[in-house]
């Protein structure tokens, strides 16, 4: 007796544990995503705050394309003048250079594509945010033979204080130094460089190496006295500044850089937000599903209570009370698990170069609120519907053996789902096309809402939509697996709502995976096509980190045996009426190689001080040969004469093309971005060997032919797609656990039936096969729905952005097939534990179960 009672309690406990588990998963998912996005934002905010002083004094004008400092400098004397201002506490000059690479102990440059490799002078100027970089270990570097590194870089390169560190310099003489590591810098109050690397030198050394020995600075930070505002100090400073130099408040400067950086990561944060939303939906499905089953299983107990005189309200309240307890417990555990999830996400992003390890996790109150709101509210709602259904039927009816709870009609649900679906499609159309752009500017929201509505609509419709599939599967199963197959098929049809709700988690995960597969594949196809069209010459010499090349390199390349010609290309940004304009510059060889079609003018007319414009750009401004274009560049305002107008050309990305001399006269640094190498006829191999030899000891220079270049570009896209897949992997994991949960609960629910089947001769193996088949139907159903939706989303998304350089829509059918296959594997794996549990049931006890 006692044992029987214990067993029944244990069985019930298991149900409780499993429904709590659903809540834990749902909450953990939301919490993990939120914490990670907060951490990401915080680390960028810290970075911005640390990159400005109270007032920043800097040259007016453009920056290089890579976002580096202007090549115009400020005289050192200005620092003392600014420090003497009545409102100034102090003034400090900064030297900043990009393209300063640390070489690790294996001889490879540290860092990756994207985050900059910075060289700085050592000063202890306080940043406006009060959270600036500071020495966290060792001593400040003094003299040309000492340097400091940021902690993360030192660690990843394998250097400790006292080691000798080789550093590559961006240009000029020398192009490499070696110095002793004396100290480490970092953000003592938390913050991350997000993958940027820092090399810190003392001021004279930095000036020597980065500013050709000039006693000057790239910018000056002025610190305000107590009680003096940033605006007041900026106004004071403006008074004594020469032409071409401006004073901006730290807040304004931080906003500028924040805007730039946030632009760059906005895709990521948007994606994470969408992901959090979707995780919320998936988590909620899981909870609703589990709770419906839990209450349905208790319907007899509840009916008994009703028969004994409990009112409907009392019964519903008792279910709600239980839901609340489970919600609180589940949310609390989920909160903890979510933190671990965020740690995992951080590790994941570190793998692809977004290193946040300097930033401790940010745990805001909103995360806690979200966790409990999700856990408790969703559970309460999930418990309400089945509880109401239970009390709606007469108690006697519920006491029968086979209780059939009344369900809202599937037809009505289908109509509601269809409405949501249509609404979602309309919203998608509004978001992806420019139909409504004149009315409201909310394309992103339309798209997001559209995706969500379509997903929800499909989920609501799926019990009806899935009927033919489930019916066909049952027949196919019966044909292939006989009676066991028939039983499995019938089980999945028994409660199509439950089957489809369980499948919907997988559906959502696969929808996104499929969409992303199409985006990634199309992006790769588009890149391939673009490279095919605009790869000129035989080899491209560039900096794989996205930085600049030493200008001396072009001559060295030209001298290599077998090289016929070398064309240089540079990029820069200039200001035109306050807007940034991209410029490209090249030489004669380049112009010959790019071979633009001149509408007006001729190639030979392009000389220093003139520009060639693309047709659209010229037409917009009504410019023709002989007219003038005025821009602001580091050297100040410049007026260039239009020498020609050209047709659109796939090789020339920018609207304005000029000469290398023009850029240098404009104050842009002498640094090439890309060298296009043409080999002499039949000397390809010789040229290649020579080029490889030349760059062998230049860790930041690479030589690539067309295939290699394309593979490189594809690798970048792959890396991006990989992050998304990893995130989706998490979503899939949750989906799998959802299936496990549903199956395990349904095994408990069907204990008697399983006992009966075993009694009439079903072997353990057959029972396991039956449950596995059941699980596979669920998984394949979810996968099919997901793939169909994903194809829809992916293709329409790519269609919408076809003007933005992604013209090719490519569907990776192989990958889609792999997804479906994976779904089968997922189904088999998910069934493992529930099937084992079912097979281990004691036949007699199972039959005797109430």
């Amino acid at each position: 007796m006692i044992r029987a009672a214990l067993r029944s309690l244990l069985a019930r406990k298991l149900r409780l544990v499993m429904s709590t588990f659903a809540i834990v998963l749902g909450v953990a998912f939301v919490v993990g995503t939120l914490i990670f996005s907060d951490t990401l934002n915080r680390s960028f905010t810290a970075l911005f705050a640390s990159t400005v002083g109270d007032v920043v004094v800097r040259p007016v004008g453009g920056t290089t394309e890579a976002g580096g400092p202007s090549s115009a400098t400020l005289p050192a004397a200005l620092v003392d003048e600014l420090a003497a201002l009545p409102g100034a506490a102090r003034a400090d000059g900064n030297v900043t250079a990009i393209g300063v690479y640390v070489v690790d102990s294996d001889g490879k440059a540290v860092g990756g594509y994207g985050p900059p490799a910075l060289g700085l002078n050592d000063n202890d100027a306080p940043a406006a945010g009060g959270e600036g970089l500071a020495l966290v270990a060792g001593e400040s570097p003094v003299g040309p033979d000492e340097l400091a590194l940021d902690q993360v870089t030192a660690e990843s390169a394998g250097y400790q204080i006292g080691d000798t560190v080789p550093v590559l310099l961006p240009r000029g003489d020398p192009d490499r130094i070696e110095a002793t590591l004396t100290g480490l810098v970092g953000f003592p109050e938390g913050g991350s460089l997000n993958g940027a690397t820092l090399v810190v030198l003392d001021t004279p050394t930095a000036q020597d190496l980065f500013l050709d020995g000039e006693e000057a600075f790239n910018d000056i930070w002025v610190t305000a006295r107590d009680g003096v505002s940033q605006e007041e100090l900026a106004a004071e400073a403006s008074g004594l500044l020469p032409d071409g130099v401006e004073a901006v408040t730290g807040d304004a400067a931080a906003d500028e850089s924040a805007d730039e950086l946030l632009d760059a990561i906005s895709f990521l944060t948007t994606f994470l937000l969408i992901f959090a939303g979707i995780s919320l939906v998936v988590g909620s499905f899981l909870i609703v599903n589990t709770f419906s089953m839990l209450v349905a299983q208790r319907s007899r107990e509840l009916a008994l209570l009703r028969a004994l005189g409990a009112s409907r309200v009392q019964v519903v309240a008792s279910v709600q009370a239980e839901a609340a307890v489970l919600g609180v417990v589940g949310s609390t555990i989920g909160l903890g698990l979510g933190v671990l999830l965020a740690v995992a996400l951080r590790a994941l992003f570190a793998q692809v170069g977004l290193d946040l390890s300097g930033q401790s996790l940010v745990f805001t109150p909103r995360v806690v609120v979200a966790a409990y709101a999700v856990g408790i509210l969703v559970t309460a709602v999930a418990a309400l519907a089945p509880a109401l259904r239970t009390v709606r039927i007469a108690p006697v009816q519920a006491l029968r053996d086979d209780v059939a709870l009344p369900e809202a009609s599937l037809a009505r649900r289908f109509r509601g789902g269809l409405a949501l679906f249509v609404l979602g499609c309309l919203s998608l159309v509004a978001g992806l096309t420019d139909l409504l752009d004149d009315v409201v500017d909310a394309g992103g929201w339309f798209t997001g809402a559209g995706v969500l509505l379509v997903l929800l609509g499909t989920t609501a419709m799926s019990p009806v939509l899935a009927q033919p599939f489930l019916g066909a599967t049952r027949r196919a199963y019966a044909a292939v697996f006989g009676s066991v197959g028939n039983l499995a098929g019938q089980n999945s049809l028994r409660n199509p709502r439950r089957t489809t709700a369980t499948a919907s988690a997988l559906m959502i995960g696969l929808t996104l995976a499929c969409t992303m597969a199409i985006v990634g594949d199309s992006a790769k196809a588009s890149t391939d096509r673009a490279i095919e069209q605009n790869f000129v010459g035989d080899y491209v010499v560039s900096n794989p980190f996205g930085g600049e090349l030493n200008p001396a390199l072009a001559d060295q390349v030209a001298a290599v045996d077998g090289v016929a010609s070398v064309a240089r290309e540079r990029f820069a940004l200039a200001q035109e009426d306050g807007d940034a304009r991209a410029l490209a510059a090249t030489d004669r060889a380049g112009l010959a190689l790019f071979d633009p079609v001149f509408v007006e003018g001729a190639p030979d007319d392009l000389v220093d001080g003139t520009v060639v414009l693309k047709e659209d750009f010229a037409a917009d401004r009504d410019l023709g040969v002989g007219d003038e274009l005025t821009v602001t560049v580091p050297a100040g305002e410049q007026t260039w004469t239009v020498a020609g107008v050209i047709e659109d050309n796939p090789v020339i990305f920018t609207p304005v093309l000029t000469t290398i001399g023009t850029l240098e006269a404009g104050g842009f640094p002498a640094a090439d971005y890309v060298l296009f190498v043409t080999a002499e006829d039949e000397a390809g191999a010789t040229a290649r060997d020579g080029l490889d030899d030349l760059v062998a000891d230049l860790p930041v220079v690479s030589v690539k032919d067309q295939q290699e270049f394309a593979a490189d570009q594809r690798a970048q896209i792959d890396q991006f797609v990989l992050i998304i897949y990893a995130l989706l992997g998490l979503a899939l994991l949750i989906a799998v656990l959802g299936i496990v949960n549903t199956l395990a609960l349904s095994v408990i629910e069907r204990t008697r039936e399983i006992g009966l089947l075993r009694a009439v001769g079903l072997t353990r193996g057959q029972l396991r096969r039956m449950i596995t088949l059941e699980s596979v139907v669920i998984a394949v159903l979810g996968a099919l729905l997901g793939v169909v939706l994903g194809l829809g989303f992916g293709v329409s998304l790519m269609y919408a952005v076809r003007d933005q350089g992604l013209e090719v829509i490519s569907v990776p059918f192989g990958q889609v097939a792999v997804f479906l296959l994976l779904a089968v594997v997922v189904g088999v794996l998910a069934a493992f534990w529930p099937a084992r549990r079912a097979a281990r049931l004691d036949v007699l006890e199972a039959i005797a179960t109430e």
Partner: protein
Amino acid sequence: MTVPPTPAPTDPPAPAAQMTAAADVAARVVGLRKTYGRGEAVVRALDDVTLELRSGEFTAVMGPSGSGKSTLMHMCAALDRPDEGEVWIGDTEIGRLGDKALTLLRREEIGFVFQSFNLVPTLTAEENVLLPLSIAGRRPDPEWFDAVVDTVGLRERLGHKPNELSGGQVQRVAVARALVSRPRIVFADEPTGNLDSRSGAEVLRLLRGAVDDHGQTVVMVTHDPVAAAYCDRVVFLADGRVVDELRAPDRDAVLEIMTRMTDAGEASA
């Protein structure tokens, strides 16, 4: 096939007297013991039970609640294992069989009708009837299937799911399922326990017919002397022991023994 004339429930039939002594044994238990719990709470559900169940015989097992009837059924039907003693189904002793062999034995040699929850709710009546065969991957003998279906009178109901059937119909489907694989022996644990007397009588007539017309061996647990009167033999259990036995029982003889047992129970209590 024609349904044999069967007596009205109020007028129990004359048992098949032509049982031959040489009839072979369908199942046999020897020295069966089963205890549940331990220490103070130990229950001897079966205490040294030895019994032969002959082929083609309809046996009733009777006894007060808790006397071990169900336990005995479960042992014989290879649903559970005894602590001590032997269970023979035909020539097979089940004591040494593993789970797989036991399952196959149940599938091939044994039919079982429970008091309730006999059918798989997702399957139609027909699929339920054919379940043991289809699990085994065997095709039903169509003539036999038709015969069974007609006997239980469910031809119209074959496509229905269990929740569309009445309690009596469900039990008839269960009987059909137990018969359709032509098992060596059918066990029924209070098959009429949940039925009204009319539906109960139908089920009993079915079982009787199977014995008479097809030589099926049936063992049934019942509380009802009227039901017992359908049988060829009644075995009485008390406190896990066989205490009495009756051949060709009629209602009054059964009632008499039951009363005696109750008195004895009260006297010893």
